[in-house]
């Protein structure tokens, strides 16, 4: 039951830490790294609030052990902002289109949208719905979230 050394790249910086094997990746990010942007909703893989990118693809951080992330590259919602800490293009679009109500699901929505737009800057409505299908918004504010993703896609295309 001894602790394990892990070395993880988070939002571009490498961190070496000792973790208990039973520690989930979501608890590691919040509790050990103080990255509170990753929200924990259900803790059993249903709500999607804890979504992060693992080597560029979206996963649920509550369904992975921190030890399993050893040697891998993670992007949390904090990693979506610009280098000076101001909101990135996608985050701006969420703000401008008011793609949130209470904001609890927002980090997961942003991560899913980021993964979608990285592959496809002109997604159809169905593609957007499919991409955020694993993220629950219990305010049911989906329409504006979708509009925010469409706005971000438009801006991405305009920026070329």
């Amino acid at each position, binding site marked *: 039951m001894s602790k394990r050394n892990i070395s993880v790249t988070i939002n571009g910086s490498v961190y070496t830490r000792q973790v208990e*094997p039973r520690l989930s990746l979501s608890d590691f990010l919040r509790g050990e790294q103080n990255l509170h942007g990753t929200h924990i909703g259900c803790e059993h*893989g249903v709500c999607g609030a804890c*979504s992060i990118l693992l080597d560029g693809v979206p996963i*649920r951080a509550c369904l*992975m052990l921190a030890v*399993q992330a050893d040697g891998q590259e993670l992007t949390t919602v904090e990693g979506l902002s610009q280098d000076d800490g101001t909101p990135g293009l996608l985050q701006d679009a969420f703000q401008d289109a008011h793609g949130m109500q209470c904001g609890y699901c927002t980090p997961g929505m942003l991560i*899913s949208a980021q993964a979608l737009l990285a592959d496809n800057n002109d997604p159809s409505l169905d593609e957007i719905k499919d991409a955020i299908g694993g993220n629950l918004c219990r305010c049911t504010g989906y329409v504006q979230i979708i509009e925010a993703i469409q706005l971000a896609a438009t801006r991405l295309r305009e920026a070329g």
Partner: protein
Amino acid sequence: MKAAKFDYIQAGSVDEVVDALAKGDGEAIIIAGGQTLMPMLSMRLARPETVIDINRIPELSGIAVDGDEVVIKACTRQATALASAEIQRHLPLLAKAIAYVGHQQTRNRGTIGGSLSHADPASEIPLTALTMDARVRLRSVAGIREVAMADYFLGPMMTARADNEILLSVHFPLPPTGSRTGTAFHEVSERRGDFAVVAAAALIVLDGNGVCSRVALGIGGADGVPKRITGLEDKLRGGKIDPDAIQAAMGEVAATLAPGSDQHAGADYRRRVAGKLAERALIDALTDALLEAENE
């Protein structure tokens, strides 16, 4: 919602896994994608002494056509299988089924072998493997054995795999050459990506004369294990198959299933949905097979 303490082994080879399983004596458990096991650990429904991580064993990943079968290694991600040209081409039924499995976040971690090992009676990959007459290869310190899907599912989340065995790979037979194969997969769930309330998988093979040489219908979520409707298959095999013949055999579906009731759906509802989805899947599989014939 925090897992109880456990020892963690990051295995580098299958040899290491089977040794650790033998040493664990029933108290060691394998983690692959973790999409089912992590919630079980968090809720303490599972309290293993040792968790054996198989994610970094290269010999457990990959998809290959080997003779007359397609072999999928256990730790192959569902997302990898869904995107695989080999699977789209050779196992279209599996590709159709995986599209219903969870969401991108879970498919990026979840594995083919993990779905087969957990064997939820409503999950899509076990249902597809059963419908396609696949078999799994299992290994313990005692050696390797293979189990056909027909003998694999023992009950809800219970399989023929022993605690000291690892599932290495699943083997899907290819359809015979010169035949036309049609497939279809349908399910009803509360939301897309949720576990199926009921799911139906159908496969129809027509020979050169348009006679149905093979038909398989599998239903998930409507019994303790995924079920083949063999009575219906027996009625349809060997003859000309058309929507009327399918209709005439539909009574076998409800007669074969013993669905349960839970918060998602009652037994009657499940039985009726199973019948409807079965009919839809068979007719779509037939259309698919005939379309393939036209395109030849």
